C-alpha cells in the first residue's frame, strides 16, 4: 500500500429528508460515514460496512441502497430518505406503529434499516405476500427476532394501508 | 444436619463416600465440620477466607450470594460445583 496521503474536504449538496442542505465531507467518506459522523443522522446504523447486513439502508433518489456502498461525493444533487425522515409531524408511519404493536424489535439496531427497506417495498407493492416480504428483506439481517414478528409487522402495516385507502 | 454431595475427584478425602452428613448452620460451619470428617478437604474448597473463585457451593441446588455466610437450613443438601456463568439473550 502506498503511504497515506491527506484527503480533501468536499462540500456536497443534497436533499436529505426533504431538507435541501450542504455538508462538508472527507472525499473518502462513504454516504454512511457522512450521514453519521458529519451530519449526525445516527439512526442510519453500521452493522458490517460492506453491504451484507442492511442496517444502513436508505432511499437514494427513490431506490433502496446500502449507504456504506455509496460515496458521499456521489450524492451531489440527490434526494435521500433516512429513518429520521420516515415519521411525519402527524405521527409515526404505519410501519413504525406496526413494529411497535407487533414487538418486531428487540435490540433495535437493525430496525431502522428494516423499516426503510419495508417502506420501499410497500411503495412499490402495497400488498405483499409473506414470501414477497421475506425476499425483499433478505438483505437486512436481524439476529434477535428470527424475523417472524418483523415479517408480520410489514404484513400488518400493509393491511392497515388497505383499510385506510 | 446437612447432606454434602462429594464430587468424584474429592472422594479420596472421604474414604470414597459420595455423600457426607455434617452439622452446620452456615456454609462456613459446614465446610469446617466437613473438614473434620474428611481431613484436608477444606483446603481444596477454600482459597484464603472464601470459596475458591472457580468453585461454588449450592444449598439445595441454589448458589447464593452470601458466600460462606449463607444460611444452611436443617436437612439441606449441599453441592460443590464449578462456578459457571450465563450468556445473554438479546
Amino acid at each position: 500500500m502506498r503511504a497515506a496521503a491527506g484527503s480533501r474536504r468536499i462540500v456536497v449538496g443534497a436533499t436529505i429528508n426533504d431538507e435541501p442542505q450542504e455538508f462538508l465531507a472527507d472525499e473518502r467518506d462513504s454516504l454512511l460515514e457522512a450521514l453519521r459522523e458529519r451530519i449526525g443522522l445516527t439512526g442510519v446504523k453500521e452493522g458490517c460496512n460492506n453491504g451484507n447486513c442492511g442496517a444502513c439502508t436508505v432511499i437514494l433518489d427513490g431506490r433502496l441502497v446500502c449507504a456504506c456502498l455509496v460515496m458521499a461525493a456521489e450524492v451531489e444533487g440527490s434526494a435521500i430518505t433516512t429513518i429520521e425522515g420516515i415519521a411525519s409531524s402527524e405521527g409515526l408511519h404505519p410501519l413504525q406503529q406496526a413494529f411497535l404493536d407487533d414487538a418486531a424489535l428487540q435490540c433495535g439496531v437493525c430496525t431502522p434499516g428494516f423499516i426503510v427497506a419495508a417502506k420501499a417495498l410497500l411503495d412499490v407493492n402495497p400488498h405483499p405476500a409473506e414470501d414477497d416480504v421475506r425476499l425483499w428483506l433478505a438483505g437486512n439481517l436481524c439476529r434477535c427476532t428470527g424475523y417472524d414478528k418483523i415479517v408480520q409487522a410489514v404484513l400488518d402495516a400493509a393491511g392497515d394501508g388497505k383499510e385506510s385507502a | 444436619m446437612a447432606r454434602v454431595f462429594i464430587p468424584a475427584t474429592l472422594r479420596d478425602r472421604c474414604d470414597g463416600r459420595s455423600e457426607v452428613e455434617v452439622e452446620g448452620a452456615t456454609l462456613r460451619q459446614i465446610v469446617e465440620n466437613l473438614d473434620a470428617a474428611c481431613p484436608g478437604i477444606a483446603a481444596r474448597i477454600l482459597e484464603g477466607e472464601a470459596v475458591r473463585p472457580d468453585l461454588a457451593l449450592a444449598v439445595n441446588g441454589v448458589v447464593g450470594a452470601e458466600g460462606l455466610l449463607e444460611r444452611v437450613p436443617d436437612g439441606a443438601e449441599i453441592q460443590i460445583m464449578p462456578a459457571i456463568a450465563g450468556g445473554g439473550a438479546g
Partner: protein
Amino acid sequence: MQAVKYARPSSVEEAVELLERGGAGARVLAGGTDLIVLARERRIDVDLLVDVKALEPLTAIRYDPADGLTIGAAAPCYRIAAHPAVQEHYPCLIDCATLIGGVAIQGRASLGGNLCNASPAGDGIPALIALGTAVEIAGPEGRRTVAAEQFCTGPGRNVLGSGEFVVALRAPPPDGRAGAAFRRFIPRGEMDIAVTNAAVHLRFDGDRVGDARVAVGAVAPRPLLVAEAGAALAGAPLSEATIEKAAAAARAAARPIDDMRGTVKQRRHLAGVLVARCIRIAAERAGVGP
C-alpha cells in the same frame, strides 16, 4: 479506505483521459458495490474513483428488434430487470439481475460492473456469455468489442488495458424460437456468493435444438463457455439423454478448487445439476416441452 479523489467526467473521452492519466490507481466507479468494499478493505490500491454514472451511453438501456439489446455498463440491476424488452425477450438477464445481492444492492450494482470485477463466481457473467453478448470497450485507441466469454482472464482480471473501460453490453436480438435461463446455487436463500452458477441459451429449429450455448461459473479461474455441452444438445430434439450429456460435459469442463465456499466434488456435481436445470427452464421459455 485510503485517500481517494472523486471525479465525475461528463464525456466518455474525458473518462478515458482520467483513467489513462490515473494509471493503475484509477478505477471506474459504477454501482460501487464491489469496488467500494475492495477499496475500503484496502484489498486493491485505488486513489481515483471515476464515476461514470453521468455518461448517457453507460446508463442507457435500449432495445431494437434488429440490433438487439444494449445495456449501459453502469445501468443498475433494478433498471435492467424492470425494462419491458428485457422482460419480454431476455428473462435470463432478469434471473441474474434479481439475484445479485439483495434489493439494496440491485439498486446500485450493474451487470457491467459485475463483468469487470471478473469474479469466477460473478452471477452476471454466465448469462452474458450464454446470450452471446458483445462487450463494447472505450479506450485511448477508440472503441473495440470483445465477446463476453473472452472478457475475463482470471480471478479479478480482464482484458481491459490502460485507460480502457466498458461502455455497454450488446446482446444479439432474439432469434426465432429461443430461450435462456440462469441459475446459481448458494447455501442460503439470498445474499451469498455462488458455489456454482450456470446459464444456458437454446435456439430451436423446429423440434430440434439448433444452437446451444452453455456457460458455467465458479468452477474455473473464470466463467467458462462450455462448447462441448452446447454441442451435446445441438442438432437433436431435447431429451433426458441429451440433457445428461450436456450436464456431463459441464462437469467434465469444470476445473474447480476447494475453498471455504465449496469443494471440488460439490462444484463439479452442481455444474451438472445447474446446467440441466437451466436447459429445462430455457426450453420451457422457448415454448418447448422437455
